């Protein structure tokens, strides 16, 4: 019985600089470290996308400075087709793993999950610290591949077999570059598994008194569900990377078929299965989409409720829907392989749950929409980005209906339609979730308010810009514009070149608008108005504690939870809300009537 207290996370306040800011055990510092890593990775990924977009629109244009990155890949600043693919691979890998997974899940989750359940810290702070530093090492290893001979791998973020295993004979970067990619992702998997090892017991075991499971805020639920997904997905991707590394360096033949001739050379492997990689990869890969988006669903719900000043139509259905998304995400992965030569009956089997998974997504959107209907939404940067998230999630999700059907997917596969689809629903939507979370929580994280005017300008430029970039992708795809081409020389693609010009200009401008965000974040961090403890009049536990929270989160106290997470629209001594940790009894408007 006494084990409960003895095992709750508890460590002494840090004293040295290293323990405070570098190898910190504090979940809040680790959360901020993850956020910093994601911000850095996002800037790198975005600059790479600029390079790609400029090259796509103006093939022969020299990009100043690019030759410094690779003399062979970009002689005189003009990238070769292979180097285009290498940059594309790195853009995808950096964005999916080190931005979309780390920021909404690892960064915000680390900072706020323990506070929202009322814990002092995660139960295994050393593992938590390792989680970040292993992930960071993975990022360094990935970036290191820019600086090896031949540069990074060109196989795309999916690293399909057998190209991932046959070595440099299959192109520049396919030697050391692939090994570094696999090692980086294997490290990333270890980091995220260590994260799940902390997130799950924190949610289950470290909740304070009165914090029943259904009193957890939606963000906590989202992070909990995501950590369960990550546990299953990353534990499968890591062995896949190990097999690929062995094929690469030890001469095994897991993924390389016999008799394979690449670049006029017979590859000395025998009998491997290329589809095996795809199965292992997509068993991770599709849940990864939801690992990126479910935290966003939680964050957006949390922010909208706070700004609508009323709870969602159904808290429970939202939780169940997120759970359903998590479960179904493992049953749909085969839809990435409709044209890979699977049995047609398998396509049918994967198509059905793919259509079914739209149901919980639709339910979530309907709950948001009908909850927003008639509400007096407080308009601020966080709520605007939350609305933007819904818009992107719907726009990107609707094209998923088309792609879910094998007969249509065969036509649209590997075109810009697919690129537009996943960028909107997974990339931009998740980014908007990250922005919303940043504007909402930065006061708590850094102790300073963020400039709202700049935030709103950032929103409108990003919102319009994202649509200008990604909606035309769908038209390009329907016109048959194939993805992964570095130049469009075919006759039928010539009329589409102006569309590419438009997209590139939009991408450059929208990217530049992100500098406003970076400036706003850094300026506010140091010179912003000091933030009060509860600037948004929120109810969950993160708003009960000081800003920024003390090292043990609640200053030696242990809150007791008396209410559901979102008691808005009530009359209490502080206003139209009552905080979870407030013992005050309130009456609802409904009861007063």
């Amino acid at each position, binding site marked *: 019985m006494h084990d409960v207290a003895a095992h*709750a996370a508890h460590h002494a306040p840090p004293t040295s600089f290293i323990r405070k800011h570098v190898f910190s055990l504090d979940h809040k510092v680790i959360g901020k470290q993850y956020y910093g890593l994601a911000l850095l990775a996002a800037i790198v990924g975005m600059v790479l996308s600029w390079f790609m977009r400029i090259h796509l629109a103006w093939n022969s244009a020299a990009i100043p400075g690019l030759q410094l990155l690779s003399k062979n890949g970009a002689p005189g600043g003009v990238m070769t087709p292979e180097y285009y693919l290498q940059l594309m691979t790195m853009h995808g890998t950096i964005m999916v793993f080190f931005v979309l997974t780390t920021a909404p899940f690892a960064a915000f989750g680390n900072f706020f999950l323990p506070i929202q359940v009322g814990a002092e810290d995660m139960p295994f702070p050393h593992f938590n610290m390792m989680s970040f530093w292993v992930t960071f090492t993975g990022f360094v290893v990935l970036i290191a591949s820019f600086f090896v001979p031949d540069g990074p791998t060109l196989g795309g973020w999916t690293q399909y077999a057998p190209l991932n295993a046959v070595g440099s004979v299959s192109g520049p970067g396919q030697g050391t570059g692939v090994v570094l990619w696999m090692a980086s992702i294997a490290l990333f998997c270890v980091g995220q598994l260590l994260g799940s090892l902390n997130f799950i*017991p924190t949610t289950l075991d470290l909740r304070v*008194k009165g914090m029943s499971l259904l009193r957890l805020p939606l963000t906590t639920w989202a992070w909990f569900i995501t950590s369960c997904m990550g546990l299953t997905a990353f534990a499968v991707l890591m062995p896949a990377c190990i097999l690929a590394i062995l094929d690469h360096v030890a001469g095994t033949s897991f993924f390389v078929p016999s008799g394979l001739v690449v670049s006029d050379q017979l590859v000395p492997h025998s009998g491997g299965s290329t589809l095996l990689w795809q199965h292992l990869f997509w068993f991770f890969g599709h849940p990864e989409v939801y690992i990126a988006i479910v935290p966003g669903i939680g964050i957006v719900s949390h922010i909208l409720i706070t700004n609508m000043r009323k709870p969602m139509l159904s808290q429970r259905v939202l939780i169940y829907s997120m759970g359903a998304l998590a479960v179904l995400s493992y049953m749909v992965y085969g839809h990435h392989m409709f044209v890979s030569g699977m049995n047609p009956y398998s396509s049918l089997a994967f198509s059905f749950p793919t259509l079914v998974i739209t149901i919980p997504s639709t339910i979530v959107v309907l709950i948001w929409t009908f909850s927003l209907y008639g509400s007096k939404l407080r308009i601020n940067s966080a709520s605007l980005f939350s609305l933007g998230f819904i818009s992107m999630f719907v726009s990107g999700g609707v094209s998923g209906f088309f792609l879910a059907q094998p007969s249509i997917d065969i036509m649209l596969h590997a075109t810009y339609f697919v690129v537009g689809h996943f960028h909107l629903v997974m990339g931009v939507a998740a980014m908007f979730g990250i922005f919303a979370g940043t504007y909402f929580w930065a006061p708590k994280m850094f102790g300073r308010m963020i400039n709202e005017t700049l935030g709103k300008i950032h929103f409108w430029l990003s919102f319009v810009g994202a649509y200008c970039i990604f909606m035309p992708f769908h038209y390009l795809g329907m016109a048959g514009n194939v993805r992964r081409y570095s130049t469009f020389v075919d006759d039928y693609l010539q009329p589409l070149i102006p569309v590419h010009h438009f997209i590139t200009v939009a991408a450059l401008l929208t990217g530049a608008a992100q500098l406003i965000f970076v400036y706003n974040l850094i300026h506010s961090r140091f010179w912003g108005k000091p933030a009060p403890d509860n600037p948004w009049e929120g109810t969950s536990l993160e708003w009960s504690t000081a800003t920024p929270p003390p090292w043990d989160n609640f200053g030696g106290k242990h809150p007791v939870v008396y209410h*559901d997470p979102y008691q808005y629209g009530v009359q209490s001594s502080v206003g139209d809300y009552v905080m979870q940790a407030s013992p005050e009894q309130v009456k609802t408007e409904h009861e007063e009537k």
Partner: protein
Amino acid sequence: MATTVHEPPQIEPRRLPDLGHSGNGGWRNLVPADGNRGVALDYSPPPSSSAIWVVLFAVTMMFAAFTSALFVRKGSSLDWETFTLPSILYFNTLLLVASSVTLEVSRRRVAVFMGGIKSQVESPARWLYITLFLGLLFVGGQYVAWSQLRAEGLYLATNPSSSFFYLLTAVHALHVLGGLGGLIYVIRKLSKSVLRRNQLVATARYWHFIGILWVYLLLLLWMKL
């Protein structure tokens, strides 16, 4: 808007002492809608007891991935050559099973020791040391098995069957080494008298799991290789 009103929780001091740390949220504390929280509440288990299931689940998923790779690889190829498993593997299996038994014995002795009846247990760590020794012997035995295969000319890349043999046994051996690390941690904590029961329980769960996993792997290798 319509929101529910909750009574302040009626914390029953006898069942839920305020121990001054986070936790106590209650594992089965679902919806105390009737306000009778004494019924709904139960103690949270210590985090390590749920964390160990997280670990075991991740390891299970990892070996499930390897297993499915083995099935797919064998099913889709014509180059699969079978070979006889080194007989020392069966002896190693006995060692690992025996180590699980000794760990259970040590668990009981440590429980008696920690229960305050210290005079009855002179050296509570003895059986832990025996378990540690058996575990080390297992890893050594696996090394002997690899050496035997090498002597037969079967290397990692010789054939997919040997690739899977080395891969599965090596990854399993790494997990056994992790378990040995856990045992050393427990022995150190015990020698300083700061061992907590759930730390030993979590280590034991992991160790037994690694044993069961080995029996599964041996059956898989025996059937498929």
